[in-house]
């Protein structure tokens, strides 16, 4: 009973319900949306978003933000694709992509923790730099005609039409979830975001934790880049443009607070699926594509506003209940309820 109640209080649940409601609503309008095959396509389509949202979750949990992951993803994808194209072994290409992600993440972390630059500014700056480097690296050209085998990875399905990358994402997410919730080391991220001074007081290395969050975030964007390359099959200089905002939105929709300390990667994953599915929903709703942005905007605002109001209400309700419970009924009838 208590467990069930607790589960329903979890913020991820409200995000999950939101996802469910969205799918069902679209299914009402256009039943073909609910075909299992299509649902799986939605999941397959979110493999990149899930990874970047999970990576972003680390940074946001520590109370910082990373506005450069779109460019990190693009840069790592460009490197990975270029090496693949030049027939480097896959492992080398993937490792190099990860290396790019780690370096980018380290630079961000360095700026935030050592140079004390506010993360939003640091990463806005590096976003420009990394994006510019993609142009330098690729000369603005598309990297295309990648080995068919590598592209085939993203088309290898298990359980019917479900891409194995999606399952991999879920496994990674689960491991990260357990790490963040159950291990002493993992709990540090939320603690740092929740109260930096308090974390410092009990001996949590704040700067190192933040640094680690940025590096992990970089690694996840690089991993996302590898999946991107496999899924899309070509890389352009604008690959990943704007993904940082989508990842942030995914985290927020998933119940992660931008002020740090609150939320889980499960929420980020659900948020990632929602963000990746919006453009699909619209196709099925038969709404003019002209309204893509309008509806995305309305959805985003509606979800976060409703969620926020519900949260506030429940907090306020709990407070009032607790306060009311303090008042004893000494003299009968004096109470005005």
């Amino acid at each position, binding site marked *: 009973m208590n467990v069930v109640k607790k589960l329903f209080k979890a913020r991820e649940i409200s995000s999950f319900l939101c996802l469910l409601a969205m799918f069902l609503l679209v299914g009402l309008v256009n039943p073909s949306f609910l075909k299992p095959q299509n649902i799986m396509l939605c999941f397959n389509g979110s493999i990149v978003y899930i990874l970047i949202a999970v990576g972003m979750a680390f940074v946001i949990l520590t109370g910082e933000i990373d506005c450069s992951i779109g460019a990190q993803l693009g840069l790592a994808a460009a490197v990975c694709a270029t090496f693949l194209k030049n027939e480097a072994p896959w492992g080398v290409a993937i490792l190099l992509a990860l290396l790019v992600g780690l370096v980018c993440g380290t630079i961000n972390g360095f*700026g935030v923790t050592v*140079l004390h630059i506010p993360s939003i500014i640091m990463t806005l700056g590096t976003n420009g730099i990394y994006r510019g480097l993609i142009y330098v690296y690729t000369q603005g050209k598309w990297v295309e005609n990648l080995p068919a085998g590598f592209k085939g990875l993203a088309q290898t399905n298990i359980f019917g039409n479900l891409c194995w990358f999606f399952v991999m994402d879920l496994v990674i997410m689960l491991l990260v979830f357990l790490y963040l919730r159950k291990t002493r080391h993992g709990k540090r991220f939320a603690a740092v975001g929740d109260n930096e001074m308090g974390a410092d007081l009990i001996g949590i290395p704040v700067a190192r934790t933040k640094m680690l969050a940025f590096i992990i975030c970089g690694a996840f964007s690089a991993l996302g880049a590898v999946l991107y390359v496999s899924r899309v099959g070509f890389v352009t200089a604008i690959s990943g443009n704007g993904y940082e905002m989508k990842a942030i939105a995914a985290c927020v929709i998933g119940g992660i607070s*931008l002020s740090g300390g609150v939320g889980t990667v499960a929420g980020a994953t659900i948020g990632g699926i929602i963000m990746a599915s919006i453009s699909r929903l619209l196709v099925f709703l038969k709404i003019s594509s002209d309204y893509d942005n309008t509806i995305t905007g309305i959805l985003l605002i509606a979800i976060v*506003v409703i969620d926020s109001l519900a949260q506030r209400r429940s907090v306020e309700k709990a407070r009032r209940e607790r306060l009311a419970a303090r008042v004893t009924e000494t003299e009968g009838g004096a109470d005005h309820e």
Partner: protein
Amino acid sequence: MNNFGKTMKSKLLSWEMLLVVVLVLEIIIFGQINPRFLRINVLMGSINDFISICVISLFVTFVMITGGIDIQAGSIIGLTSITVGMLWQDKGLNIWVAAIFAIVVGLLCGLLSGFFVAYTGVQPMVVTLGGSFLYSGLALAVVNMSSSEAYEGIGGFPESFMKLSSGNVAGIPNQLIIFIALIIISYILLHKTKYGRYVFLCGVNPSASEYSGIRVKPIIMSTYGLSGMSASIAGLILTSYLGSAKSDLGATYTLPIITAVVLGGTSNTGGKGGVIGTAIAAVVIGILKFGLNMSGMPSQYLDIPVGILLIVVLTFRMTSSNPAVVAKFKKLTGKK
């Protein structure tokens, strides 16, 4: 010790001075690379290309002082532009009436987002991200209401409207005059009025502001309205400058605006900052891009130097205000 307050003030002053120095350096260096750069009409003309960023960042400063952020201003530019075009062409309104109407639209858009930020407690970044989608979508909806196609743009505006950006008074381009006027207005509003003080106080501690009898929510909401309004002014200028109303103008301005505000010395956590710094910083960035481009650097690479500038300047700023670093530095120089 005695001059604690004064040193703080002079620190701020010197920050703005530093930006001016950077600006002068830029002009000198780029002038060396390409002497045409120094022609007065070239320099003055260059402001045309970043005036929108200058104008909007002045008022986004207000938002950031309340501890918020506004990443929707770019899409309000497009909405304003297409609104003014549509009203003028299809509804036959006088162009200036249409312009006023468009400014009101920008104001309302800003207020709507501001409302959500102030009254529902959703983080400003998310609300304005949603807003940026919403308003760029609405811009397309406005196009659909008009007789022209979205891709065509609306052109052929009357001469008087075109003068907004191409005319000049005593050799000073109108755009520069508008910019200076807006600097003065925003400066007075932020630093000389009660409203401006409230903006600061709400940014420092909203709860303490409530206890001081300040109506925090309307104040916060209003700053988004102001920035929306400034975005629509920028939209008008841009429409006049391009001679064409389009729904996707300004889509790329978000990052430069935030960059200018922060580089100008406004804290992203609220409570500190000012419009003069923002104004200078916006010009510093604009001139940097212009100068680099004139020196032959292709546009797609420009974000690299701007990013580096941002990081270098902030490193300087953060470390110089960090007592531990200052102490270390003093020790080092003292010993030598």
